[in-house]
């Protein structure tokens, strides 16, 4: 169920009404049932798969916490991670790797023709997210950074809680498990704030992202000769599409959580205002980048074991982070690209150098330049194939027809991102993501009326699925 759908609206109305009258224990049971139903609405068969993963992790974590023998602890850690990664690996990457190897063998003429026909493997919804959350739980228990859950049902809810089940934010046991096990305060203010967040998320998704998709998709679907301006337009549009898609979803998730008294982590902090790659990853998909930092980068050596090790760790982490997004070489390239940017930034920046802040011209320039580097990266992310990347790059730099631009399409882009940018600038200036929510009630009504008007006028009825849905 998409959050911005009628089914979900009905579903949530029922669930929330019950939630308000139930006691804490029954609230948890209700949420478990609701989350199972929510997932099953997509495909009930994969519910079983999720339960296998959850049960394994719960038992392994218990074993780890109850044992003092380092070997036992390590064995169960490995079992848990292995199970999680195998499931993820099989469902997400099996075809990709097999096809790639097949192709490679053919290229080297070790095989005259391909022997591998891709299996019809369905990608389970949310698998990348719940797998990562599970791994973080077990590793945290192993590191004694978190106390394991005493109740299977609490752990179950921790993983499958439906607002964050499909596309995050990836929550840590330390911050989220207590919210599950302890009673939560549902306040009127929480409800209003949650509703505001949800509404803004819907606006981002339905007005901005889905409309921009209509500009982006035709360009990437065509295989003919590209024109530079057309490619640039599509890239700008996609940069905001993917941001609004994902930030929108995260806001909707946070909003739903807030209504129920849960605090889900903020996933985006105005990422396009970043001036360098390091800052970008502190602002973009925060829960994923902190996950990669804590469970991949630091174990690989992090920044504590010399520069060479650090660069290698950065590249590998980002490469795997790219791969996490999808089973295709374009995603790997995208990860590599960002890894290279991070390494490059480290090489160029002196340690403890003063970074320009605020609205200084240098910072503004840095932000604009870096934004365009990110936009370029999105080409790798969105392209259907590597040849397409090449063709589009060529068009971008060589075949730019400045006079023959599609004014209508450009003005559409401007129209759809203007409200978003206006809000973001306001958020940046005030340093508060919820700045609009804190304004005078009349101003807020004006804001709501404008958003509703735009949604009614231009909201796409049958919306595109979230880009991150198939993760």
């Amino acid at each position: 169920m998409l959050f911005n759908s009628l089914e979900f609206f009905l579903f949530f109305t029922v669930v929330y009404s019950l939630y308000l009258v139930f006691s804490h224990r029954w609230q948890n049971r209700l949420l478990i049932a609701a989350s199972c139903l929510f997932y099953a609405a997509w495909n009930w068969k994969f519910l079983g798969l999720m339960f296998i993963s959850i049960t394994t992790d719960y038992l392994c974590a218990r074993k780890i916490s109850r044992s003092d023998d380092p070997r036992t602890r390590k064995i169960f850690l490995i079992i848990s991670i292995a199970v999680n990664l195998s499931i993820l690996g099989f469902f997400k990457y099996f075809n990709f790797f097999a096809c790639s190897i097949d192709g490679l063998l053919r290229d080297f003429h070790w095989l005259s023709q391909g022997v591998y026909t891709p299996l019809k493997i369905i990608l389970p919804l949310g698998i990348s997210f719940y797998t990562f959350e599970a791994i973080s739980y077990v590793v945290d228990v192993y590191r004694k950074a978190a106390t394991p859950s005493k109740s299977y049902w609490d752990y179950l809810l921790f993983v499958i809680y439906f607002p964050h089940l499909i596309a995050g934010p990836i929550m840590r046991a330390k911050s989220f498990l207590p919210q599950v096990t302890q009673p939560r305060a549902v306040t009127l203010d929480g409800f209003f704030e949650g509703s505001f967040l949800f509404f803004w998320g819907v606006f981002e998704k339905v007005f901005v992202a889905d409309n921009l998709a209509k500009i982006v998709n035709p360009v990437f679907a065509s295989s003919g000769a590209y024109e530079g301006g057309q490619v640039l337009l599509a890239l700008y549009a996609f940069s905001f599409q993917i941001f609004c898609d994902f930030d929108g979803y995260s806001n909707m998730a946070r909003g739903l959580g807030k209504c129920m008294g849960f605090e889900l982590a903020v996933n985006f902090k105005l990422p396009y205002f970043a001036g360098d790659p390091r800052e970008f990853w502190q602002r973009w998909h925060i829960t994923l980048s902190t996950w990669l930092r804590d469970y991949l980068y630091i174990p690989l050596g992090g920044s504590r074991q010399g520069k060479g090790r650090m660069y290698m760790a950065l590249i590998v982490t980002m490469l795997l982070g790219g791969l996490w997004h999808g089973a295709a070489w374009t995603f790997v390239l995208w990860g590599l690209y960002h890894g290279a940017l991070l390494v490059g930034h480290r090489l160029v920046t002196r340690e403890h150098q003063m970074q320009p802040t605020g609205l200084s011209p240098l910072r503004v320039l840095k932000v604009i330049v870096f934004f365009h580097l990110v936009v370029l990266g999105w080409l790798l992310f969105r392209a259907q194939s590597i040849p397409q990347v090449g063709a589009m790059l060529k068009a971008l730099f060589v075949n730019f027809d400045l006079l023959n631009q599609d004014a209508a399409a450009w003005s559409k882009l401007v129209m759809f991102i203007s409200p978003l940018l206006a809000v973001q600038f306001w958020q940046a200036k005030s340093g508060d993501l919820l700045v609009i929510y804190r304004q005078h009630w009349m101003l807020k009504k004006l804001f709501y009326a404008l958003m509703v008007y735009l949604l009614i006028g231009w909201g796409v009825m049958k919306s595109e699925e979230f880009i991150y849905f198939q993760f």
Partner: protein
Amino acid sequence: MRFGRALRSIGCFLLFLEIFFWVGSFVTQTVQSLGNSVRSSLQSDVYKIVCIGESTTLLGGKDSYPSQLENVLNERKPGKFQVINQAMAGVTTDVILNHLPEWINTYQPNMVVAMIGINDPIQSQAKTHLSVLKKIKLVGVARSLKENLMAIFEEYRVKVWAFLKNEQKPVAEPSEGPVLETEHEQFMAAMNVAPQPQKDTYLLTLLAEGQGRDDIAEVLFEKFLSENTNPVIQSWVVKQYGVLLIRRKQYEKFVSVMDRIPPDSWTLEWVKGYCQSEQAMQRVASVIDKMVVKDGRDKLIYSWAASCFEEGGRRDLMEEYLKKSMVTESSYYAPKTRANYTALKDLLLSNDIQPVFVQYPMRDIRPLLSIFEGMPDLNRIIFVDNGTSYRQAVNEKSYSDYFIDRASGDHGHGTKLGNRFLAENVAQAIAGVIP
């Protein structure tokens, strides 16, 4: 205290929203008029067509139906045609008629294509204080939203119902044999595999009818229908039987026989049969409810029923069904709309401008035609029928391929494809008069 604050909040929100709708409408209108006057002043020896209507005509920019009409026409004769989109969102025919002299003056068109009336009040006795409500744009928006929601709910209801009844989806499955297109072909195929005694009975009915022995045929039909249970065969044979019963003026029997099969558009033709029977007329109401056919003609049944009752001498039922037909949108034009349409025709013809009147997608052309019945200059009007063609197209593909919403209930604002389809229908209809 809190209640007052909530009310204040909501009121403020609605007020702002209404203002945004007015501003948006004004801006779109201005932009469009500017665009039109710029384009119009440039060309001189082109064939000018002005499209008037409401939001279904206005919206879409390049993908709107007037733009696509221009493309379609210019494909054949490049540069020869100019189509000006002078539609206005959310207005009634009164407003459109008021502006028309000014537009005729500005654009000097050769032809005016009008698809108007959707926003006009349905009730012929609209009370005056309600007219204020109609001025509020939010009311129109709310109505549109309501239609959309109703359509979504209806879709779900159908899906859930089908799921519960475990129905097969009416999707063309690749079949082994030849695809059976018509009902007759299906009937023949089913008869081929029927038991021989039943086949014989059926053949005898045909023989009896051919010999003019309707009395024997009636008996044979009864026998056949009691033995055979195949719904495809039943559906076909019952209708043949029904024809015979009408011929023999066995109206009561006709009614009871027709009740055996699900009513469809064919049955509509035989409403008269029901109306001839005093007994049946009592039951017509329930029969008519069953006869609601999802092809846009359902509302028309009421007016047909009314005329039937009139013939059968039941004036009370006639009044009732006439009223029912008046309050349904797709079959009836309010007196105000009819008057405006007539005024439009007169204005255009007196200015030597070719009138082209377009019925809304999915709707029957007959109510539109009926406005001009008996007028001497009826043959100078070109009508565009979007009923059957759209219904067929939507059946073949899907509703959402042609429309982005259900703002008008049975249709809505068009997709690029939907508007192109409309443009092609119009182009086809005017092919005879344009250069």
